[in-house]
């Protein structure tokens, strides 16, 4: 599994020539999304792409809808992690994901990975557990969270179904990490 990082501010400057640095308006969001898709190129479906918000000052809902929600919908087969997410970015991204019944992994500036969007509380705890432990061991996971193994497997199935985890070749499910 390889990884790629896409700096949104660079994409903005390369895509639009007007010199502004904020991610606002639908028009800008659509242009930036197209810029991202061009950069994705021939990346394998197993690769993880980090969409880096670290240098983004302002993100509005319209732009978040165009960049994040539509990217996840259109590129469903790919794996994304939203990187460098601040509380302000979260306020724009969370509602648009919920509107589309989507979920995404986010990594804040301290490196902590959480889930954004529509997801059960149990699945959110699973994300936190896997982020902390790096990789999933279903028995340890069930034991730590005081779950039956069946319930633990259901939560992991939810993560896989929502595109937040993936079946790996050795039969376990791995979370994308930085």
């Amino acid at each position, binding site marked *: 599994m390889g990884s790629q990082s896409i700096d949104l501010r660079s994409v903005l400057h390369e895509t639009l020539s*007007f010199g*502004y*640095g*904020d991610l*606002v*308006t*639908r*028009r*800008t969001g659509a242009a930036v999304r197209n810029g991202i898709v061009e950069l994705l190129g021939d990346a394998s479906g197993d690769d993880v792409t980090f969409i880096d918000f670290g240098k983004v*000052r*302002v*993100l*509005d*809902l*319209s732009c978040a*809808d*165009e960049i994040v*929600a*539509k990217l996840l919908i259109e590129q469903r087969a790919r794996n994304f992690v939203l990187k460098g997410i*601040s*509380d*302000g*970015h979260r*306020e*724009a991204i969370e*509602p*648009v994901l919920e*509107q*589309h019944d989507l979920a995404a992994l986010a990594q804040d500036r301290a490196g902590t990975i959480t889930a954004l969007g529509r997801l059960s509380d149990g699945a959110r705890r699973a994300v936190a557990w896997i982020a902390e432990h790096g990789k999933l061991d279903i028995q340890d996971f069930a034991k730590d969270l005081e779950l039956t193994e069946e319930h633990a497997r259901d939560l992991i199935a939810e993560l896989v179904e929502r595109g937040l985890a993936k079946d790996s070749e050795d039969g376990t499910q791995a979370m994308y990490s930085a």
Partner: protein
Amino acid sequence: MTRVVEIPSHLDHQSFDQFAKSFGEPGDERLLFDGHSIHWGSPYALTGLLSAGQWLKEQGKPQPLFTVPNDKDVAGYWARAGFFEHAVEFFELHGKVPHVRAHGTSDVLLPVTPIRGADDVHGVVDKIQEHAQSMLRDLGLESQATMGFAMALSEACQNIVEHAGTGGWVAVQAYHWRKRLGRRVVVIAVADGGVGFKSSLEPTQGHLLGDRWSDSAALEAAIFQGVSRFRDPGRGQGLAGMRRYVDRWQGKLSLRSGTARLSIVPPWDDDVPMTDHLPPFPGSQVLLIIPARQES
């Protein structure tokens, strides 16, 4: 024939209906906007007056007259806020216009600025960042309020670009609202002379309500149900985002369109959530008020 449009001496979102009533439904007569006795005009007033002038021009009505406020402080404030700079495009100005160019100050955070397209929204968001952090710190709000403020401003302006069918105006000012609140506030005012919420949403929503389709129904659909004229399921989130922002920071959101006004009313205000059967006025007028945090 010339008809006088009375402007209340204290023109803001509360007295705007009085102005709208006097504005009426103009025919081919020439209008005279009588502003000579104005003692105070809020950003809502400035953007609303400009959108009225813009609407008259776009409707091909005779160019209206506008008498400049006699009060030098008021006229000076309006000049700094950029009102006269744009008013000359729509009005024949009478009276002494101060020769002051519009510029940002501690009170005029964003002079009256035209919004015609997405680039203008970028310009406004970029400009407000110069002041946003210190302005919100002055109100005692956390740094988290800053991006939300720019986001709300952006969405309010995009409402014009996406729905009005014409251009509009935005202004951001800070002032001490002594009379009503006794606290400092930051105010975003956005107005356009476009089609209004009812006409914008009618093609997709009108048939659902039939005879009950009205300005108030359109405002409710837009703000509470996130309805948009576009069928894209991601649309219609901007107003909901503005509502969340004012909820979080105990602010007020008010939308007036046609003959109705819908307000998200904070505990410090005694406005009513919905007012119907108001005097008609073109386009839509949006107001956000973010108050300073009350010291415990």
